[in-house]
């Protein structure tokens, strides 16, 4: 017997993402899904934002990692609510995981929610988490060719953060090429140059965040 259907493969995740979106809207929370390769500085960007905005904005963080609670411990030291999701080897977060975490983190008390995805430039792009904005993070040490190699992330993101710009003098990073490639994928996307280490560009990052609220 042949069953003729048109069923979206990602349907289950899409439905959960819609529930997350509705839940965020009801609570008046802006959620950011940070996607990057491992080690680009997602946690550092979140820490930098918390240091700048704490006291002014009620922030929460959902940390996604295959294993360990190290990132959540880093965030907890800054005294903001944090939930760690361990995917147990899984390479991306899914909307159901975020949905569970929303209740745990008491989303109604928040204004701004960071969702740090598992470090991976491919799989997280396919899974809508119901976020308000998608943030693509690249560190200069990864090379300028990441946008061209992983176009789907840069096409679907609303902002690109180029992190670790303090390392540029030691790298063969072609920033002109990087910027041109990002703009060819997504003509209007802002590109924020940041060094969490020196603090350069952190105020532009937090300014961008404040404008989203």
């Amino acid at each position, binding site marked *: 017997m042949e*069953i003729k*259907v048109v069923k*979206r*493969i990602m349907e289950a995740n899409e439905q959960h993402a819609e529930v997350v979106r509705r839940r965020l809207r009801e609570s008046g929370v802006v959620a950011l899904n940070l996607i990057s390769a491992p080690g680009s500085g997602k946690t550092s960007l979140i820490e930098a934002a918390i240091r700048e905005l704490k006291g002014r904005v009620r922030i929460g963080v959902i940390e996604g990692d295959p294993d360990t609670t190290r990132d959540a411990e880093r965030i907890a030291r800054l005294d903001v609510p944090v939930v760690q999701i361990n995917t147990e080897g899984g390479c*991306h977060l899914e909307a159901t995981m975020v949905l569970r975490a929303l209740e745990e983190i008491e989303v109604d008390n928040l204004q701004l929610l960071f969702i740090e995805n598992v470090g991976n430039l491919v799989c997280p792009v396919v899974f809508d988490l119901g976020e308000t904005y998608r943030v693509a993070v690249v560190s200069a040490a990864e090379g300028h060719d990441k946008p061209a190699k992983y*176009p*789907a992330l840069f096409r679907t993101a609303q902002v690109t953060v180029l992190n670790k710009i303090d390392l540029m003098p030691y790298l063969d990073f072609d920033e002109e090429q990087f910027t041109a490639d990002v*703009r060819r994928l997504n003509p209007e996307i802002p590109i924020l140059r940041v060094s969490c280490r020196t603090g350069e560009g952190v105020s532009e990052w937090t300014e961008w965040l404040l404008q989203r609220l």
Partner: protein
Amino acid sequence: MHEFSIAEAIIHATQEVVQANGGGKVEEIHLRIGELRQVVPDALLFAFDVLKQDTPLAEASLHWETVPAQVRCKACNTEYHPNDVFWECPSCGAIGGEVVAGEELDIVGVTLMEGSDGD
């Protein structure tokens, strides 16, 4: 490696289709996959073969057609097939555009083994 994630979702979605149609053993799953999803066929087949073990889909095979990417220019509305990761309108040269086709990840048919359906 997102082929593993997609294979997992295919198994889940197919089981939903089968249950909604009275159950049965799956022989074939027919898919429509958009070019922009950058799915590597061998990687998807491998992932599916690994993950289907111990599920009601253990004997199922995967078949799919690739849907070519189609983009609509935001400036002049021309629809074209992008030949590169960077989309440049062949008529007016504008960069970027809206996706008309090429992001499909659909199940379009499920074949059940003879005599295995719930009827």
